[in-house]
């Protein structure tokens, strides 16, 4: 009986050690780690964050929603939050329509910036049909220089018809940045 207990005790301890080792390796070269170390003092620090937004603010499962109850065609600005960390440089941005905005012959124009109503990242362009993208032009990178503070990203949509006349429309916003702050943090100098 005693031998059996000792046997299973060793067995479980061994299993726990293996499991802990496995989880510790998980963040080492990728996976759940926020910044992947690929060698001595070398990191993969280019990251792409994706957020989604919908015209429909009632049943939307997207991260953000415009207000489609408004009986006007005023531009709406939505703050996606501080999705670019401090010290990061914004390399590129892309807005992709993945569900056509049902607007008859009307249009929706999209702008992306780091300030409310700003267009620091992507200039205003019509973008309301599935698979249409607004993207970083050739020779235009990096889109925004790094600063010591985290940066918010704002998306603006400007329809040519009242918001409450729109009954569909979804977009994915992807922002790619070099996370210098995370490299510093991971290196713990």
């Amino acid at each position, binding site marked *: 009986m005693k031998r059996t207990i000792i046997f299973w005790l060793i067995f479980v301890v061994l299993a726990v050690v293996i499991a802990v080792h496995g989880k510790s390796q998980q963040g080492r070269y990728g996976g759940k780690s926020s910044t992947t170390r690929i060698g001595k003092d070398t990191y993969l620090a280019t990251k792409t964050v994706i957020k989604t937004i919908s015209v429909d603010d009632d049943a939307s*499962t997207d991260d953000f929603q415009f207000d489609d109850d408004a009986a006007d065609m005023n531009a709406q600005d939505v703050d996606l939050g501080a999705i670019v960390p401090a010290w990061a440089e914004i390399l590129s941005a892309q807005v992709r329509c993945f569900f056509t905005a049902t607007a008859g012959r009307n249009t929706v124009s999209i702008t992306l910036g780091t300030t409310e109503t700003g267009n620091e990242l992507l200039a205003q362009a019509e973008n309301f049909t599935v698979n249409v993208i607004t993207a970083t032009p050739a020779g235009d990178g990096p889109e925004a220089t790094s600063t010591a503070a985290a940066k918010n990203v704002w998306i603006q949509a400007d329809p040519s018809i009242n918001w409450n006349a729109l009954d569909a429309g979804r977009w*994915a916003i992807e922002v790619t940045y070099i996370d210098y702050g995370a490299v510093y943090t991971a290196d713990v100098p």
Partner: protein
Amino acid sequence: MKRLLLAILFLGLVAISVDGQRERYAGVDSTPKLGTDVYAAMKTVIKTFSAVTAGSVDDYQFDNTVANITEQTREIASIIPAYAEIVSAQVRCIETLVSSGVDVMAIDVGTSDGGAEILATADTDTANDINATGAGDGPEVVATNAARSVWVNATPDANWDTLSAGRWVVIVTYLDNGAVFTEESP
């Protein structure tokens, strides 16, 4: 019963361990997820080219049996996925061009047959010569919603059939926005 439960516990812990190892080299997923809504989507693809057709083990070969100096173009078909932005490119000579005539080879890289949308023409014919993205020139090509081919175009100063050596690597870095969208599945 107790032994069975312990065995299940053991297997579970081993599974967790294996899961951790699985992501160690980020090799299973083409676009590793780094955190909530955050991905590593910058990718670099490399292809090799040879000036010599016969016996080449490279990915692509130019035809060195023709008696002319006409530009030859090779298509790396649909190497850039839809929605990707081409960030940077580099052509590097890894084996010096050898010709019984003139050892000069001009190379450009584009997204169309014979085009130079990615890298303008430059002599790239001696080992370690590179033709690369210029400062302030990135991204090289804006994203589109269709996959794109990359064309490598080479023009020798001497007839192709005078060439007996010459190899290059073509390296293209792109931001795979389409893969991020697919991984996120909104």
